[in-house]
Every structure is written in structure tokens, then in C-alpha cells.
């Protein structure tokens, strides 16, 4: 096995996903298969080939530092489950 059930649990927790135990087993074997495929790719000799950072062979897409209109507070908040005083409201975050 490339990956343990514990690793999958950990990744799920970091991604805020709740996996039931059967699901966890299915995910573990699927992820193991994916990593196995990556291992297969690793058999290729890639020495001297620059790692690809992006699928598109382009670079330097810039904007100039010019202000564009904001969308407005009302529209910014319209999809929020809760809001008030021009802010999004969330359950209290304790530092």
C-alpha cells in the first residue's frame, strides 16, 4: 500500500471532509491506485527536464495598477447565509 487509512483520515480532516468507515476504505484503495499510477510515471527518466509549473506554455499575464469599480456591499453580501453591519457573519472564531 502506498497510502494508509490513517493518511487518508488525516487528509480528509485537513479538507474538512467526514468519511464514514466504508467510504474511508474505498477512498484509501482509490487513492492508493492513483499513487501507484504516479509511481509508474516516476519510472520515466526526467533528469534535466525543467518541472512544469503550468499546463499553458505562457508567462507574465499582468494587470496594470488601476482601480476597477467594486461590486458594492449589497451584491458582495447577497449570497451570504448571514450578514449584518456590512459584514459577513460567521460563528464566533476563537483565537
Amino acid at each position, binding site marked *: 500500500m502506498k497510502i494508509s487509512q490513517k493518511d487518508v483520515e*488525516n487528509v480528509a480532516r*485537513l479538507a*474538512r471532509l467526514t468519511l464514514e468507515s466504508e467510504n474511508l476504505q474505498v477512498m484509501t484503495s482509490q487513492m492508493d491506485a492513483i499513487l501507484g499510477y504516479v509511481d509508474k510515471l516516476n519510472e520515466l527518466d526526467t533528469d534535466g527536464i525543467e518541472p512544469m*509549473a*503550468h*499546463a*499553458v506554455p*505562457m*508567462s*507574465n*499575464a*499582468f*494587470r*496594470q*495598477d*488601476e*482601480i*476597477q469599480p*467594486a*461590486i*458594492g*456591499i449589497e451584491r*458582495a*453580501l447577497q449570497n451570504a447565509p*448571514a450578514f*449584518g*453591519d*456590512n*459584514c*459577513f*457573519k*460567521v*460563528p*464566533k*472564531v*476563537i*483565537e
Partner: protein
Amino acid sequence: MNSRYEVVIGLEVHVQLTTKTKIFCGCSTEFGQSPNSQTCPVCLGLPGALPVLNRQVVEDGIKAGLATNCQIAPRSIFARKNYFYPDLPKGYQISQFELPICEHGWMDIETEELGQKRVGITRIHMEEDAGKLLHNEDNSSSVDLNRACTPLLEVVSEPDMRSSEEAIAYLKQLHQIVVYLGICDGNLEEGSFRCDANVSIRPWGQKELGTRSELKNLNSFRFIKQAIEYEVERQIDVIDEGGKVVQETRLFDPDAGVSRSMRSKEEAHDYRYFPDPDLLPLQISEDWIEQVRRQLPELPEAKIVRFQDEMGLPAYDAGVLAAERRLAEYFEVLVQLYNKPKICSNWVMGEVLGALKEKNLEIVDCPVSPELLAGILLRIDDNTISGKIAKIVFEEIWQSGKTADQVIEEKGMKQVSDTGAIEVIVDEVLAANPGQVAEYRAGKEKMMGFFVGQVMKASKGKVNPGMANQLLKKKLSE
């Protein structure tokens, strides 16, 4: 300095850039506006919205790198730093991990204790800021995303500092540089220049670093110093009691003067960085770097040397005048108008800075411009007014904004250089103080100061003091 342990400090500074817009969208970065009034689909993290890099942020990054002797990476990429927090709408922060824009830099800092010392700069990378959280009474928190996506440069030092003094010297110098470069407003309280300190201790002679703790929430140079010193003492106590320092993040509470562990965030430190597919790689050509290099202002270190070498100023004066870019500019304009640098320096450091400090103003708000000040100095030179009267003229100009010539004319402050007129006053003073005259003639030469003072007083400061002195000497030896 502790006799048993060596202190090791590395610093991470978040420099908020002064660009007009955010790093990945065109929303304004202006401080203090209504919550969420400066937002758009990109900085709100709405699905499908795509970030586009602000070119100015890259230029500011190159500037910071050049000013701190970094290598500017010809190729650099953005990465996603994944964690969940309500001030981070996308669930990840766009930052740089592998291939940051600048690496391998250094700064020479100076402390009284050790003199000059080189501190390594590991890297500088570009990233977006998170939003702001406000905690309410009713068990809720409010999220304002105006600050979300504001451009930051994170400057990471090597663990090269060995005392809180060195840490502060490094921070002050970095602060001075980014403000000089015009890429940061340098306001610590508003969070434009934020520092995290990694602090550890180790027995003298040990090579490996001790376990470090990371101090956060340090928003003034004084707090940073306090927090580091508190942390060093705390770690020594832990070790002396047979314990082990644990790696953790600690929040400094300036009111209580102590730091507290923030264990809640510990387990989230697995950020699973990966290249952000929404952003193309960045290529920075030699031409671009050279173009930015040519735009760099003269930095304080170079200015201090030039003020001493070319203008003959003492090191102290040069340091004070070069500390702030605007002040240095004021001084240099003044020297162009009145080419006696040391006299200019005395006036700027004395009258100008004194008055600004008293009125709690910045140099840009100084009502006496270099032109107006030069006007005063020229009138001292041609004996129209004495140095003492000049200070009164300065105050008048500060109030009224008039020129020196106008003030001197209107207030009748012109110095009396007419021998006959001065002689009359001198005679009066000598006649009124026969006792002191006798003392002087009996050998008490210190009385001369008294006589000059009396003459100045009688003339309301308008007599040329040099001439008064001469005449007094002559009369008293008759």
C-alpha cells in the same frame, strides 16, 4: 547577554505594499473604508473568478530584493497555501513557496554592542493578505474582506540575530528601506509592517538550533523587544526546570507583557502547498531588473556616506538627516539654496525637527519650506540679523508663512551695525553698571558675557553681537 545560553532569532516581516489596487484584482486598497465596499468576485473568492497579477507588485518585489542584495529569480511561481479560516474566503492563500521572487540577500545592521554585522535574508515572496475579523458580543464574528487580497511582501531572515537589540536594528533598517523605496507606508499600528519573531536558545557552543517558538502580534518596535526578551526568559526557565521547549505559536499581549500559547492553530500547520493553476509563471528578464534598478532612490546607507564625504557632515548629523527620505530631501533642497551644509544641518536638526516634534508634525507638513529657511540663513550671512533674532524670524515664518525679508521689515528686526548707535547703548550699559565695570577692570573677565547680554537686552537683540563685544572691550580697556 546571558552567560549560559545563546539567543537565536529569525524574523519574518510582512510588508504591505502601497499599490493602488489589490494583488490579483482591481479593487482599491484604501484603508478605513466601509466593510466589504472594496470587494469583487476575485477577492471574495467566488467560484470561477480568476486572479490576474498586478504588475506593480512584481516591480515592488524587485525593488525590495535589489535594496536587500537579493538575487531576483528569473522564473518564479505562485502556490496555494491551504487552510480554513473565515477571513480567507477561497480556503487557500495565494503565496509563493518554491521559486519565490527573491532569494539569498543580506543587510548590514549596526548595534552599539557589536558594531556592524551582516544578517542574511533567506527569501522575499509575494502573497495576498487575508480579510479582517471582528469579534462580536453575540457569539458571532464579522468578516470584512476589504483587506483580503491586499499585496504583501514577506521578508524572511536567516536565524542570524543574537539579541533583541540586533532584531530591532534589523527591523528598523528594513522598515527604513521599504519606506525609502516608497513601496510601504511603514505604519506599524495599521499593520503595514508586521513582524513575527522565531526565537530559540541553545547552550553556548552548541551547533544545532534549539526548538523555536514563533511570536505573533508584534505591532511596535517596543513590543517586539519586550516580547523577545520575555520569550528568552521563559525558555530559560523551562529548560532550567528540566522541561523542554515545545514548538508553538505564541501571541504577545502588550498590556500584560506576557505571551500566550496559541495551540489551537498547531495541528493546521500542514498547508499542502501546490502550484496555483490559476496563475501563469512569472519571468523576470535582466532588462526589467536593470530598468527597476535605475529607478531605485539613493538608500539611507549611501546617503549617510555621501553626507559625510561630500558635505563634510559629522556621522551623527548624517544619520539623523538620512533617517527619513522626506527629511533628507528637505535638507538637500536647503543645501542647494544655501551651500553651507553644517549650518543647514544645525538648523534642520535643531529648529525644524524641534518645532515639528513639539507640534507633532511630519516634515512634509513643515510650514517653513527649505526656500523660506534659506531666506533666513542668507540674512544671517549678510549681517541683516543675528543668529538669535533668526530664531524669532523662524517662529514668525512658521506662524505666518511670510518670507524672512517680509518678517524682518515688518517687525523692524534689522540688526544694528552702525557703530555710533551701538556705542550709545554700550555707554548706557556701562554707566548703569558701575559695580560690574569695576569687577571687570579688577580682572574678572567673565563679566564680559554679562555686558554683552545687557547690550543685547537693551537693544532687543538687534545689535550685532560681534560688534558689541568689540566695542565693550575697547571701552572697558580705556
